[in-house]
């Protein structure tokens, strides 16, 4: 079970340039894991890689990066191929990249809705399929994907974003069942409100978390192969209640 005890891992992170992905990548780099970073914007990638290298105290050039855009599925295979080659193998694939938009903006702009559903569901699934194939070909590994507590129940303020995340959560659950025996560990992360650039400008609710707390929890989940993790920790019990709320209550509350 505990596959994390076997020393440094070879890790690919899609979304390490910002938010929770940045915090997680820093933590992994600092303990000696070998990273390859995927994302968009060459400058952003180069800056994030420099940050990781200095924090980890490794020489410049030891962390690689490749362009990979969740809006362009044709970039997935090439980016993962390059990562695998540079790392000399692959133990963990992490996906933290996603898109968020307010419900009102989505309702007034079908193009924006299509983009969000495509990025957060369809293309994330396509990326996971590509990553999964590569991990299975090596006899297994860990696929860690950031979904959201917004996918746990249908809720007014995040109807569309939540629907995409619900789909993603169910897909990941199915992958866990389907491939567990083949050695694939699927870790589904369900963050509650976390103070990152994505949620900047939204009013933080009580229990809003910091990316560093999420990163600590997620790293442990990756090491242990925990299939489902709420982060920060307070969201576990909160969602336990929310999941059980009867429909007539959900209708009333604005949560």
């Amino acid at each position, binding site marked *: 079970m505990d596959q994390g005890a076997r020393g440094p891992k070879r890790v690919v992170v899609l*979304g390490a*340039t*910002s*938010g929770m992905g*940045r915090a997680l990548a820093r933590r992994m780099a600092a303990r000696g894991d070998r990273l390859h970073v995927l*994302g*968009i914007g060459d400058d*952003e990638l180069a*800056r*994030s890689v*420099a*940050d990781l290298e*200095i*924090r980890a*105290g490794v020489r410049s050039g030891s962390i690689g990066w490749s362009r990979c855009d*969740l809006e362009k599925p044709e970039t997935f295979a090439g980016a993962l191929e390059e990562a695998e080659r540079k790392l000399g193998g692959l133990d963990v694939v992490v996906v933290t*990249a*996603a*898109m*968020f*938009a*307010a419900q009102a903006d989505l309702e007034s702009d079908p193009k924006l809705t299509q983009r969000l559903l495509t990025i957060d569901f369809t293309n994330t699934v396509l990326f996971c399929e590509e990553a999964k194939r590569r991990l299975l070909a090596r006899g297994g590994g860990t696929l860690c994907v950031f979904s959201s507590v917004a996918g746990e129940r249908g809720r007014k303020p995040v109807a569309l974003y939540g629907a995409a995340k619900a789909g993603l959560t169910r897909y990941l659950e199915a992958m866990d069942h389907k491939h567990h025996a083949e050695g694939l560990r699927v870790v589904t992360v369900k963050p509650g409100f976390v103070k*990152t*650039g*994505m*949620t*900047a*400008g*939204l*009013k933080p609710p009580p229990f809003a978390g910091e990316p560093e707390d999420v990163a600590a929890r997620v790293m442990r989940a990756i090491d242990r192969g925990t299939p489902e993790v709420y982060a920060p920790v307070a969201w576990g019990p909160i969602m336990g209640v929310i999941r059980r709320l009867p429909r007539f209550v959900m209708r009333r509350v604005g949560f």
Partner: protein
Amino acid sequence: MRNGNGSGVSMIEGWGGIGVPGRELRSENLERVTERAVLSRGLGRSYGDSSLPPASVGEVVNTTLADRLLAFDEETGLMRAEAGLSLLALNRIFLPRGWFVPVTPGTQFVTLGGMVASDVHGKEHHVRGCFGEHVTRLKMRVADGRVLWCSDEQHQDLFRATIGGMGLTGHILEVEVRMMRIPTAWILQESRRVDDIDEFIARLKDASHRLPATMGWIDLLTRGKNMGRGTLMAGDFASADVAPKRFPKPLPRVTMPFELPSWTVDRWSVRAFNTAYYWKHLPREMHGIVHWETFFYPLDMIRHWNRMYGARGFTQYQCVLPDSAGPSAPRRLLEILTSRGGASMLCVIKNCGPEGKGILSFPMPGTSIALDIPVRDDTQQLVDALNEFVLREGGRIYLTKDQFTRPEHFRAMEPRLPKFQEIRAKWDPEQRIRSAQSVRLFGDKP
């Protein structure tokens, strides 16, 4: 991956607890988020209104998500990072590797950008000057929208006005600074009980000849003969042969969980606090190895210590009295405070060395005195009286701490202001970049 700057009106406060309604724009991408902003702020540790937006704008960039290290040279110690990187993060990363910032303020909860904007000084000002002395380059977004580098070679006027310029010359995006090699992360400290303010002044000078970092804490409730008794601390990084072999463990922190009612900050509680602190130092002199956090950042151990001052908040009054004012000047300043019944939980006294390169930087050769003052109905009059004294003696105040100074006092004690304003006008003729403090003190448009 995608950043949003939505709405959500709330309060923005300085560390003194006095705030304004407004909102903070946050993004990992400082270049984008500063495009139309009038001011940037970091962790909000400046005490007064220097990191608050003008009332008509109500919006300020918060830089703390932009915290990436971009370059570090192991040979020279030259380090470059985004402006929102905190000193806490910097210390956690670099102290174990034998590097330290060349100049540190009394808290780790500051950002690199804030350290430049305030041109922070430390216990070792007489040896190493201000932070700005060690800054080699700054990447800035200036008022006309351009992003550019400034240094002593390139746009020197902008560079020197930005160091200690309270964020009023543009948004600081990246900071390049030369870090300092240290033998170990432990501090060899000597401390002694001091009986009055005059002895303090003498001992500060004496200690500063022997050790780089010196400062004193003063109990302000004793009057007459004992006025200004307290504790003097001096130290330096310990060499490897005297320090413990292991790296210092993180110290436990406690949190001030809620605001104390204002009436607790009365004369009696302040007296009890100060007396306890004074007598904690039972032996007249102590020597020993201490943790770097204990030495440099004693108040960081109590999170939200500003809540101690209750809902009305507090202000800090920090001034520097030049050597020309004579050795009795600190005593006379403290007499003004105590004669007006002013209580101060915390009074810190330090030596200042020569002026730095920042055009509006605070320190000048002399003695710096910092006082925490709980806000009361007569706070304005008290600050006025202190300012009139400082003005007469040729001193000046620290803008990072200020909330109550009147513009006419500020102008009178700042002969350097016209020069600063001239450079500002060149880079920002429409006075776009401004703060609540610059509206109050510099006469910027509201």
